[in-house]
């Protein structure tokens, strides 16, 4: 193409527009659902969700405290999204991130509560456990050609039952409540800028760590040979193999790294002490929600940070609903709808391109012809 790429045609801009459109549409549909449930209070309902912790705007400390809580809770979500998008770039759908997260959860809680290790060792073991769980599904994929989605789903459930078995230990868990004890002080990740966030005790160096991981992933994908090979394998496996890239090694390495990040996510969540694990009948939703965040963030490591925060913001927004009229799960439903709408991103981009070429038709017929060829 002769002209410089127009602003609206840049892939990054289009992804951003598409994601924002999905979010806005999701919120609108959420409002319609509120209307259907209780028409007279729907307005204040949606306002409560959107206003969120800004409700405390007369008290900056409280507001910053809740901002901190939202940030802290969005960290594991963002990390899970990083794990998923990293694998997705290599053409692997790592639905097993949920299981790798669970493996990290087992490791971090076990090393911290049963063995009394210090935080960095616990975090490292969470990372390694996630990596190992990822290695399992990578191995099944590379050597036995088992579809990674199916292997991932199986390993998710195995990890869940392992968690329920291993953590049901008197040292780790209050058996009568089937809930783990609080993390000992030694195991808590060191604090980070806590005074700024209204002395939020859960604000830890997990926050900068998450951002570093996101930047690292961005750099690996865009600035290294390994990242290039990954993306090449994702675009066309056979061509990559023909070009001399080691497909098996790349598959395993990708899922191992992806798993390590998912494991780290669990460590960053449970080692702040913000939540206690309790015996569960279903795989932690974090890994699945990570899929959502990855797509909402346009499969971009930096975009995932904002998408993760936004999703957590909405989810937390459900807590501000007046329970006399609505239940907090409406926020979850909104999130689910936004994710569903992300499936239409391709179509939205197509519309954006189509509209633009229609404008060019009037200006310059020659350019349109070139564009037309490109689009087909």
């Amino acid at each position, binding site marked *: 193409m002769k002209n410089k790429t127009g602003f609206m045609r840049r892939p990054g801009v289009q992804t951003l527009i598409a994601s924002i459109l999905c979010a806005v549409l999701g919120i609108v549909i959420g409002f319609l*659902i509120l209307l259907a*449930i209780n028409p007279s209070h729907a307005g204040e309902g949606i306002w409560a969700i959107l206003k969120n912790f800004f409700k405390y705007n007369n008290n900056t400390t409280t507001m910053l405290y809740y901002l901190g809580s939202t940030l802290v809770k969005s960290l594991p979500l963002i990390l899970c999204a990083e794990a998923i998008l990293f694998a997705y770039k290599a053409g692997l*759908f790592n*639905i097993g991130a949920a299981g790798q997260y669970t493996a990290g959860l087992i490791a971090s809680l076990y090393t911290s509560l049963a063995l009394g290790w210090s935080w960095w060792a616990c975090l490292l073991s969470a990372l390694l456990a996630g990596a190992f769980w990822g290695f399992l599904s990578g191995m*099944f994929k590379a050597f*036995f*050609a*088992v*579809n990674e*989605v*199916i*292997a991932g*789903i*199986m*390993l*998710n*459930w*195995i990890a869940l*039952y*392992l968690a*329920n*078995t291993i953590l049901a230990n008197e040292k780790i868990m209050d058996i009568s409540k089937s809930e783990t004890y609080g993390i000992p002080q030694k195991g808590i990740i060191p604090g980070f800028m806590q005074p700024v966030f209204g002395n939020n005790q859960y604000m830890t160096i997990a926050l900068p760590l998450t951002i570093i991981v996101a930047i690292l992933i961005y750099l690996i994908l865009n600035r290294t040979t390994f990242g290039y090979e990954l993306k090449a394998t994702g675009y066309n496996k056979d061509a990559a193999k023909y070009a001399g890239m080691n497909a098996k090694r790349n598959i395993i390495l990708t899922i191992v790294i992806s798993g390590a990040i998912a494991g780290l996510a669990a460590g960053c969540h449970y080692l702040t002490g913000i939540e206690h694990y309790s015996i569960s*009948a*279903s*795989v932690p939703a974090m890994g*699945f*929600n990570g*899929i*959502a965040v990855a*797509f909402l963030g346009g499969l971009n490591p930096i975009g995932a940070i904002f998408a993760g925060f936004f999703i957590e913001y909405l989810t937390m927004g459900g807590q501000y609903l007046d*329970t*006399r009229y609505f*239940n907090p*799960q*409406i926020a*979850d*439903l909104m*999130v*689910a*709808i936004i*994710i*569903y709408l*992300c*499936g*239409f991103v*391709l*179509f939205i981009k197509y519309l954006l391109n189509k509209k633009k070429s229609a404008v060019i038709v009037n200006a310059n017929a020659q350019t349109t012809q070139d564009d037309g060829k490109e689009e*087909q």
Partner: protein
Amino acid sequence: MLLLIQYTLIFASVLILVALGGMFSERSGIINLGLEGIMVFGAMAGAMVMVLLPDNTPKIVVIVLTMLAAAAAGMITSLFIAVAAINFKADQTLVGTAVNMIGVAGATVIVKAFNTNRSNGTDFSPKLDYVKGQEAFSFHIGDLRLNWFIVVAIVLLVVATVYFYKTKSALRLRACGEHPQAADSVGINVYKMRYLGVLISGFLGGLGGIIYISAATSTWHFDYGVAGAGFLALAVMIFGQWKPERIAWSAVIFALFKALSSVYMGIDFLKALPISGTVYNMLPYIVSLIVLAFTSKNSRAPKAEGIPYDKGAR
């Protein structure tokens, strides 16, 4: 022992129906990861019908209406997947995951609103209690308590198998999952066949959902969804190599393990073994992973599954 047989039959009928649903969808070229969400909505609709029907409704009416509602709800849910994946070429794994999330959150919201309205704002729980409706479904052969659902599942299995192997329509559907361009070139409407596949999966998935929640229990908390039954059915489908008769017996194997985890406490020699309950829970997954490892090299997955059909592509 009777309890074990009873549970195995129940789980097997759920898994057979849902796995067959997944099979039809994938054979037409659409990966249906949203089976879990389809099951939840099917279960919810069926349970609501059981709750709302007056106590003196004849059994046969309860049975028919409940199943119709479940199947219809399942089909409507599957349309979410069909529209996005077929018309808008969306990523099928993403859409499936989203439908699962919509299933759990949506059913929770709807059931809570339903309960709140029904109780004039005193009951906010996400659970439905359908003990009366559930009784309509059971019958006895000797000491063995059976369920009409099992009969329905067997009938549908036979129908599905005959349809799958003996009809022109199914042959066309399968062609769309293997090589849609070739199918299109001989005048088959690929979009229509894929809609058919996904809708069948919605029908069977919705039925599977109501069986799952009502065959053994009489209350259900919808915030749990269906606790992974949809994913288990996907495993059964792959284990069954996308073929109805193989799906049937792999469903029975999976169901046996699942039933063992529920009832092993009641069987003396199993209880005496030094194996914890969670091991039985894990077994179906471990076994299927190992078996998949040995069978996947010559897997018979539909070739075009997961790839949106683009008429212009060559």
